[in-house]
């Protein structure tokens, strides 16, 4: 190694020291550049909520893995332990086995923890190692770019396991196990939590808005299949749904009327029937036939109502009402809803007017008085109001149904995409590629912006440049040049603190090996001082090597680099 004088030590320009911004990457030979760190930190940083959930999941899985190891170890060694005279209680619980296997020998355990390194437990150990690496990486200030994808992959696997457990718990719940029902609810909550974290993770890692993408896909799919939009769907279904709403309300009104009827005394019920003019209850014979073994009590009558008498009661009061007002059933139901009591006679007032007045009880008490000639308008109005109300209710129901179906489909799309992303290393690689592409393009963009800001060259300058680079040079692979530089940096790093005066690194030979005729007036050497100083800087050894190379390549004094504007 050539020795040089102190005066020939590296002359590093101030600006060059900041050119390369690096930090150790996995302790390997490559270092991360600052621009990448800035770009990736935005996308790979894991939010606190997700971190907490994943921490909990990994802690729980680690505990399960140790338990699994203990139980496997117990199974593998049970016979030999018995042979050695160790007392193992019949039907020993898993908890007892785990304590015994992992417990220290001093306390009567087997102290078998170290056996986890044996090859028969390699699968369990690998799982634990992976969990450990994930946990360490996700807590790093600069989360490695592959970590969110690996976490997503891990989460999806946990979601699948939890879903299988949930199916089992639901089956046990159906068999009447109330404990299983509680556990199933808790499991369902856990799955939702994991999905939420997986979604956040996938969106950040892939730079995708999964909900928006799912929505777009769904709408495109529906458009392709010719399915109606929300408005069209509601328009198509409104009449049908409004009829359903009306029918249900009619039944409710009749049921309510039946309850009121049954709350009356026997005498009043007879009067009610007289006012309607039709039988409202089953005949005793019909009751005995239909409701074998039941007594005709109020409860029995209610059962009969549920088992056939509803239609008799309904038809009777509807017929009476329609007859009384000379209206159709829909209008009559509207009046019932408004408060009309079928058993209360319509009163007539003859005072001061020459036509009768209908006095109709209305909901909430009081009554509505209408003249005979205004009856049709009155009925029309309440029917119109009811129809409007039913339509509004039907529309709200259809909207709710649509929204619920829509959001269900969107969620299904999101889950499908999460599963795709979490199950495909190919897509994950694509995601990593995307992250790096963004960082790479940002570097070039910054460089190009600086380049474009300069004054254009004069014709003389351009001619000079053209002349300099006109002849074909020796073919060199710049990628290999950088690879060799990085390798050299790796070798320098390995020298650690032992770098002394005898270890001065002469870079000239390295450069010459690449056909680079460095300017002799620039030093091409790395001194122990520079080496030690560089180890403490952010740019590190690679920065130092690159600066020496850059310095060596700089044009001779007098050929100044044109400054940007």
């Amino acid at each position: 190694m050539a020795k040089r004088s102190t005066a020939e030590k590296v002359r590093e320009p101030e600006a060059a020291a900041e050119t390369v911004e690096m930090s150790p990457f996995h302790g390997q030979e490559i270092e991360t550049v600052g621009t990448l760190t800035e770009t990736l930190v935005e996308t790979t940083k894991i939010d606190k909520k997700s971190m907490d959930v994943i921490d909990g999941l990994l802690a729980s899985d680690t505990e399960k893995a140790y338990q699994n190891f203990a139980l496997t170890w117990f199974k593998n060694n049970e016979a030999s332990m018995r042979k050695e005279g160790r007392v193992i209680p019949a039907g020993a619980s898993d908890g007892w086995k785990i304590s015994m296997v992992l417990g220290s020998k001093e306390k009567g355990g087997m102290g078998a923890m170290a056996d986890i390194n044996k090859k028969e437990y390699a699968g369990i150990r690998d799982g634990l190692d992976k969990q450990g690496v994930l946990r360490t990486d996700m807590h790093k200030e600069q989360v490695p770019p592959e970590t969110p994808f690996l976490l997503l992959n891990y989460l999806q696997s946990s979601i699948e396991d939890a879903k299988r457990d949930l199916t089992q718990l639901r089956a046990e719940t159906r068999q009447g196990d109330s404990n299983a029902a509680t556990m199933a609810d808790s499991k369902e909550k856990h799955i939702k939590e994991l999905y939420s974290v997986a979604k956040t993770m996938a969106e950040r890692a892939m730079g995708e808005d999964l909900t928006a993408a799912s929505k777009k896909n769904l709408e495109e799919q529906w458009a392709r299949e010719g399915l109606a939009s929300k408005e069209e769907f509601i328009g198509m279904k409104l009449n049908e749904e409004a009829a359903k709403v009306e029918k249900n309300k009619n039944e409710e009104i009749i049921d309510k009327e039946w309850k009121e009827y049954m709350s009356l005394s026997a005498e009043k019920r007879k009067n009610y029937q007289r006012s309607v003019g039709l039988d409202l209850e089953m005949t005793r014979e019909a009751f005995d036939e239909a409701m074998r073994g039941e007594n005709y009590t109020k409860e029995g009558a209610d059962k009969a109502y549920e088992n056939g008498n509803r239609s008799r009661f309904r038809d009777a009061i509807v017929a009476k009402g329609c007859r009384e007002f000379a209206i159709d059933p829909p209008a009559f139901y509207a009046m019932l809803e408004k408060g009309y009591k079928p058993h209360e006679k319509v009163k007539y007032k003859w005072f001061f007017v020459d036509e009768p007045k209908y006095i109709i009880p209305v909901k909430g008490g009081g009554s509505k008085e209408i003249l005979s000639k205004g009856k049709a308008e009155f009925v029309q109005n309440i029917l119109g109001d009811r129809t409007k109300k039913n339509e509004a209710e039907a529309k709200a129901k259809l909207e709710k149904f649509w929204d619920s179906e829509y959001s269900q489909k969107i969620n299904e799309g999101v889950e499908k995409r999460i599963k795709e992303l979490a199950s495909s290393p190919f897509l994950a690689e694509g995601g990593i590629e995307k992250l790096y592409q963004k960082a790479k393009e940002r570097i070039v963009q910054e460089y190009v912006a600086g380049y474009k800001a300069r004054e254009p060259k004069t014709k003389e300058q351009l001619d000079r440049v053209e002349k300099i680079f006109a002849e074909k040079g020796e073919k060199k692979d710049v990628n290999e040049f950088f690879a060799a530089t990085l390798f050299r940096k790796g070798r320098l790093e390995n020298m650690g603190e032992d770098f002394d005066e005898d270890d001065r690194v002469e870079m000239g030979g390295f450069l010459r090996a690449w056909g680079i005729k460095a300017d002799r007036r620039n030093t091409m050497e790395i001194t122990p001082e520079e080496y030690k100083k560089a180890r403490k800087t952010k740019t590190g050894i690679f920065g130092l090597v690159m600066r020496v190379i850059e310095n060596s390549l700089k044009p001779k004094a007098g050929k100044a680099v044109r400054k940007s504007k």
Partner: protein
Amino acid sequence: MVNPILDNDNLKTFIMSLGISSEQEKFLLDELPRMDEAERLEMLNALKDVYILNEEKKQAVAKLQADWK
């Protein structure tokens, strides 16, 4: 004598190997013949970071493949 790694052809091959956007690649290739030595060196310094990113990406993908369940 021009440093060989700053040569038109060598830099062109290097730029094309980086996998940057086609628009950026085209700009750099178009401008390259007009760049003097200092400018080429400056560009190389910026593109060196892109080279490192490509190397780092390879490591990230390798780790992903190794730890994928």
